[in-house]
C-alpha cells in the first residue's frame, strides 16, 4: 500500500489535527501507522478511537469515488503540496490540536501550491456588520487584484464578503471548509462554493461526505492560518472563532493584522484586543496588507497627506511677516514691522519675496494678502 493511500485512510479514520496521530505519522510514516491500526495495535490509544471507523474502510475506492466528483487528494509527497503547511508540525499545538494535515481534499483545477504561494487569510465574525463586510470585500478585492490569493472559510459574514470581493476582480480565492468539499455548508453558500471551485480552490482536511462539527472548525482554522502568509481579522467579537485563527497565525509566526471598527462596536471588540495586546498590525485597506505581506519594500502603502501649500515652505520670519499682512485694509511696511516684530528693512525684503510667491500684493496704500495658498 502506498503512503498516499494510507494517508487517505488515516484522514478518514481520524479527526483533523489529532496530535497523537500526526506525531506517529511523522515518526513512522503513514503506511506503517495504518498497518498498525489494521493489526489492532492500540498505539497511543488511537486504535480504540478509530476501531469503529476501520470496519469496511476502502481508501482506494474513496479516492476513485472522489475523482468522479472532481475531488483529488493532495499530500506532502505531491508536487503541489504547499510547504508552508509543514510549519504546523513545528508549531505548538493549541487545545490538543495541531500538526500538518495528513493531506488535503481539493476541488478546483488550479495547483494548490501555486494558488497559495502568496496568500492572505481574511477572516472574521459570521454575524458581521455591513461595515465589516464591505471593508473585508474591498480589502480582499484590492489584494486579489495584486495577485495575492484570498483564503477564508466560506462562512456567513466576513468570510463570504472576502471571497466575493476577490471574485469580483476575478482574483483567486481559496475556501477552507470544516466538512467534505462536496458538501455546502452553510447550504445557502452552494453557489458561492461552486463558483470558487470553478475559479479557485475549495479544500478541506476532511474526506468527502463528512459533516462539520464544532471542533472541526477549530482544526480548520489552523489550515487557513498556515496556507496564508498573514491573517487579517476584520470583525470578531470577544468569543469569535476568528480569534482562534489569529492564535494560529501567531503560533506560526505569520503576520497578524486587524481592521479596527468603532470602539463602541461589539463585533470589533475582539479585533481591538488583538491590536492592543497581541501585537496585531492595524490595517485599514488593501495597500496596508500588501505592504506587510509582500516581499519587503515591494509594496509601500502611501501615507495619506494633506496637500502641500506654499505657506508650508516658509520660514519662521516669513510666516510672521505674512501673518502681519492684513487681508482687507492695506498696511504700510512700518505697520507690518510693528505687528510682526521684524525689523523694517527685513520686512521689505520678505514682502517682496512673498509677492513673488503670489501671497501678497502691493497697492497704492500698502501691502495686502491675496488669499492664495494653493500648492505650487
Amino acid at each position, binding site marked *: 500500500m502506498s503512503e498516499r493511500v494510507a494517508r487517505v485512510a488515516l484522514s478518514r479514520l481520524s479527526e483533523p489535527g489529532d496530535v497523537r496521530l500526526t506525531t506517529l505519522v511523522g515518526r513512522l510514516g503513514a503506511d506503517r501507522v495504518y498497518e498498525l491500526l489494521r493489526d489492532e495495535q492500540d498505539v497511543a490509544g488511537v486504535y480504540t478511537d478509530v476501531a469503529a471507523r476501520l470496519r469496511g474502510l476502502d481508501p482506494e475506492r474513496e479516492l476513485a469515488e472522489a475523482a468522479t466528483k472532481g475531488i483529488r487528494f493532495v499530500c506532502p509527497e505531491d508536487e503541489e503540496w504547499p510547504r508552508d503547511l509543514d510549519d504546523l508540525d513545528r508549531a505548538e499545538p493549541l487545545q490538543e490540536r495541531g500538526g500538518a494535515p495528513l493531506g488535503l481534499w481539493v476541488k478546483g483545477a488550479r495547483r494548490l501550491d501555486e494558488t497559495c504561494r502568496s496568500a492572505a487569510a481574511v477572516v472574521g465574525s459570521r454575524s458581521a*456588520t455591513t461595515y*465589516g463586510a464591505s471593508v473585508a470585500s474591498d480589502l480582499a478585492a484590492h489584494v486579489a487584484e495584486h495577485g495575492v490569493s484570498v483564503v477564508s472559510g466560506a462562512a456567513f459574514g466576513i468570510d463570504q464578503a472576502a471571497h466575493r470581493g476577490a471574485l469580483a476582480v476575478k482574483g483567486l480565492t481559496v475556501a477552507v471548509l470544516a466538512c467534505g468539499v462536496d458538501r455546502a455548508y452553510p447550504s445557502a453558500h452552494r453557489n458561492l462554493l461552486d463558483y470558487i471551485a470553478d475559479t479557485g480552490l475549495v479544500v478541506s482536511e476532511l474526506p468527502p461526505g463528512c459533516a462539520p462539527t464544532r471542533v472541526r472548525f477549530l482544526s480548520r482554522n489552523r489550515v487557513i492560518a498556515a496556507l496564508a502568509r498573514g491573517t487579517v481579522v476584520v470583525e470578531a467579537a470577544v468569543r469569535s472563532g476568528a480569534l482562534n485563527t489569529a492564535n494560529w497565525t501567531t503560533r506560526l509566526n505569520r503576520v497578524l493584522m486587524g481592521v479596527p471598527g468603532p470602539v463602541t462596536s461589539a463585533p470589533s471588540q475582539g479585533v481591538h484586543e488583538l491590536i492592543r495586546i497581541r501585537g496585531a498590525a492595524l490595517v485599514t485597506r488593501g495597500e496596508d496588507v500588501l505592504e506587510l505581506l509582500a516581499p519587503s519594500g515591494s509594496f509601500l502603502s502611501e501615507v495619506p497627506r494633506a496637500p502641500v501649500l506654499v505657506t508650508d515652505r516658509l520660514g519662521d520670519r516669513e510666516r510672521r511677516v505674512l501673518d502681519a499682512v492684513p487681508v482687507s485694509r492695506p498696511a504700510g511696511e512700518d505697520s507690518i514691522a510693528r505687528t510682526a516684530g521684524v525689523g523694517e528693512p527685513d520686512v521689505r525684503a520678505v514682502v517682496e519675496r512673498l509677492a513673488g510667491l503670489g501671497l501678497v500684493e502691493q497697492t497704492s496704500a500698502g501691502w495686502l494678502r491675496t488669499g492664495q495658498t494653493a500648492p505650487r
Partner: protein
Amino acid sequence: MGVATARTITLQGASGHVIDVQVDVSQGIVKTAMVGRPDASISEARDRCRAAVTNSGFEWPATRRVTILLSPADLPKRGPHFDLAIAVATLAASGKIPVAALTGVVFVGELTLDGRLRAVPGVLPMAMAASARDLGCVVVPEPQAEEASMIPGMTVLGARSLAQVVAILRGEPVPEAAPVQPLAPGPLLSWRGEHRIEAVDLSDVLGMADAKYALEVAAAGGHHVMLSGPKGAGKTTLAERLPGLLPDLTLEEALELSAIYSLAGCLPVGQTVMTRPPFRAPHHSATRTGILGGGSGRVHPGEVSRAHTGALFLDEFPLFQADIIEGLREPLESGEVTIARGDEIATFPARTMFVLACNPCPCGEYHPTNRDNRCECLEVRRREYRRKISGPIADRIDITRHVEPLTRREKDDPLARPETSAEVRARVTAARERQARRYDGTGWRLNSAVPGPVLRERWPLPPEAELLVDDRVYAGTLTRRGATRVHRLAWTVADLRGVGRPDVAEVDAALRLRSGEPLMLSALGAVAG
C-alpha cells in the same frame, strides 16, 4: 305652502357634517333669504337654484317669502354642492315633491342655470359621512355615482339634472338629459416614461444591502427613513423603489386614500378606487400649502395627505423652507395634519412613510472618510446645512442610513443576486398581515401607528432587550420618544423575520437602524444581495 328639509353634507378637512337645508315658503314680504352662515358660493346658490328650477319647468315661489336655513348654524359651510338640496327642499316646501320622499336622503350637486347637475369635489368623503350618520341614500351627479358606491350598503342615485331628481322623488318616469361632464379632466397629454415608477425594480440596484434592508423594514412597518449620502450615490434610485415594495391597499386604506383624492378633485377618471399606494415626490421649492395642505377658499389636502397609506419622498430635504420642515413635526408623529385657519379647523389623514434624502453638505461631495473627499464646502456651510434638519425632526425619523456610491467590487460581484421587488414585497406583505392580526380590532394597522403607552403595556419587550434600549436612554444617546420608536421598529424587524416577538437581536437591529450604525444582516437571517 309649507316647510321641508333636505340634507346635504359639508366637509371640514376630511370629516363631514350633515347639514339640514330647511326651506320655509310662506306669506310675507316677497324675498328669498338665506340664513345660517353660508359662504359666498352658497349665497350664489339662491340665484342658481331659482334659474335652475324655472328652466327645469317648475315654478319658483317668486311671490312668496322663501327662507332658507342651513343648520347647524355654527358650522362654516362651503361649496356649491348645496344647490341640489336647496332646490329640492324649496320644491318640496312648495308642494311639488312629497316631503316624505326627502327623508333619509342626502343631496349633493351643483346646478347650472338650465337645471343640469354638475360634478363637485369630495363626493366620496361626503358619502362616508352620510353612511356614518345612518343616512342610507345619496343623490349625486351621475359621473360620481361610482365614487359614492364604494361605501358598502349605500344606495346611490346618479342623476343628470334637477328634473331627473324630481322625477325620481315623485316616482315618475325619469326624463332624458344630457350627460354630465366628470370633474377630473381627462388626460390632455400623456408622455413616455409617465409610468416610470411602476417600471423600476429593486433588483436594478446592486449592493447597498444595508439601505435595501432599511427600506424593507420601513415598508413593512410604515416607518420614516432618512437617506444621506453624496450626490449620485443612489438615494433617489432607492426611494423610487419603495412603492414597489408595498402591497396593494386594503379596502379600508383604499377608501381613505380615494376620499382624499376625491376632496382634491383629482380622483382619476374611470378608476373606481385607488388600489396602489401612492408615491409623491414634491420638489423642494414647493409651498407650505402644497406640502401640508390649506389654500384659500376650500381647504385642499397637501402632499402629505395625498401620500397617505403610501410614501412621501422629500429629496434635498434641508433645502425645503424651514417652516415646512417644522410643519412636518405633526404628520411625522401623529400621522395626520391639522390646518387651523380662523374658525375653521381641518384635519386630514397623513399616515405616510416619509423618505427624506439629504446630501452630507451643500456641494454633495463630502465623505467623512478622508480618502476620497472632494468636498469644497466651508465647515460653517456644512454645519448650517445639517442644522436645517432640526433636533425635533431628526428625533422623529425611525431609520437613518448613509448611502455610499457603488464600488467596482460590488458592481462586478459575480454572485450578486439582487432580490426583486416582488420577493421583498412578499415578505413585507406577510409582515403586514402579522401586524393586522395582532392589532385586529384596535384601529391600528401598522407598528408605526401604535401609541407608545399601549405598546409598552400590551406588547412589551423582554427584559433583556429592554435593557439595551434603557442603556442608551440613560447614556443620553436616545430620547424617550426615540425609545418608543425603537420599540415599534423592533416589532417590525420581528414581524419580518416571522418570530413571535422581538428579542435582543431585533432590538439591536432597531437601534442600529435608528442610529445609522452598520447592520448585522446575517444575524437577522436577511440575505445580503
